[in-house]
């Protein structure tokens, strides 16, 4: 029994958590603050799998639908790399529900791809920005992110206005999600 205990002790002594719990002291408050933040975010990540409101929160972040920039900025510190199934369509004409999901024609005029995270980075973080500056016409982007039972679709328009690419949302029937 004693040797059993000493075996368990030897194993336990290799765990940082064991030593941290054994030496709790108020003067380590900075450490506890950091640990609390990280553990809280771990639980938030786990909640993402099952809780629809948490899923919606992350989808809104991906689609820039948070009500305030500050809230979005706080969420930015939560790691979400390669999350959700993110699809994007790009065209020179406004895309509609029918043209996207019920027709296969005209595919050559349309550009379609999957992205790892934050699908709008197709417009803001790529080496082909100059393409969007060609010609006076607007470019249209529809992006769809899916996670389990949840889906979010957003529509964006890009237009070259005096040498700047103006990015804004547009409405297209019932295609674009308002959440």
């Amino acid at each position, binding site marked *: 029994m004693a040797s059993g205990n000493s075996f368990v002790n030897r194993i336990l002594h290799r765990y940082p958590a064991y030593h941290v719990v054994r030496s709790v002291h108020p003067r*380590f408050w900075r450490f506890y603050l950091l640990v609390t933040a990280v553990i809280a975010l771990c639980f938030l990540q786990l909640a993402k799998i099952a809780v629809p409101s948490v899923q919606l929160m992350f989808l809104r972040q991906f689609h820039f639908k948070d009500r305030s920039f500050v809230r979005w900025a706080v969420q930015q510190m939560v790691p979400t*790399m390669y999350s959700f*199934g993110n699809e994007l369509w790009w065209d020179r004409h406004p895309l509609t529900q029918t043209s996207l999901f019920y027709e296969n024609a005209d595919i050559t005029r349309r550009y379609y791809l999957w992205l790892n995270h934050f699908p709008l980075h197709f417009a803001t973080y790529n080496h082909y920005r100059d393409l969007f500056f060609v010609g006076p016409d607007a470019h249209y982007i529809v992006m769809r992110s899916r996670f389990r039972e949840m889906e979010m679709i957003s529509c964006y328009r890009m237009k070259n206005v005096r040498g700047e*690419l103006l990015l804004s949302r547009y409405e297209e029937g019932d295609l674009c999600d308002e959440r």
Partner: protein
Amino acid sequence: MCAANCCSAGMKKGICAMSVERNQRVVGIVLLFWLVGWFVRTKYFLTYLFGHILRYPVRFDFFPDLFLSGELSVLLYFLPLLAVPALIRPSRTSYIVASALVTVTSALSAWHIDTYNDATNVTCFWVGGWLLWASVNINREDETFQWQACFLAQLIVAMVFLGGAAGKMTAAYTDGEAWRQMFLSHERFWLSGWIHRVFGDSRLGEISVIMSRLMIGAEWTMAAIPLLPYRWGAGIAITLMVFMMPVTNTILIFSVLGCMIGMLIGGWMLCPGPRTPALPEQV
């Protein structure tokens, strides 16, 4: 700080100096990994910053004006160079300043329209937080500091990969579709080129399911490292991250993973091993 936490009257000065030196070496190594990871993308970023961001600015009313400025993007990319002197003249103060600088830089980059998407910013922010905490406590001699550093490193790596693992618990990834579309639908990466040549297009579906599920499994494994003794967990996580680099993308992904590899190595150096005689605890 030291008077309160480490070099007390009962402790031999030599041992204390050795431990502080070791702490400084650890912080220096983690900071070095952070900087190498950040600047490994320099060739890519020089083209991106000067060829695109400054020439083709984007405006989007979701972002405040400050975070739309192309000049700020350029500044933020090069700002961590100011942390280099801390590696040359290490001290508690220089490490605190350098760590605060790299942490703030990553946060600002994560909020900027030109760079918000880059996962590098988030991993660098959290490792920056670890660096800042370790720098503030750099003169501590007690073994508790070493265990705390290891525990925090484990937790940060777990949180990062938990984000990826949880975000992939959806049909797009478990059925391999996202993986096939992003990595196997073209031959840009060496691995996808090799798979196309060896297996042909007809088997891409099955291969993407296997690869996608392996990646999810690897991320869950790394998310679970706090459940393992430090060195086992760190060893597994470092091995998986090194393996991920050539498989998922290019060496550029070192910008995301490098700082975490450095932090786990730092924890490895600090972690009191089973044969290390415990130093007297100074509370």
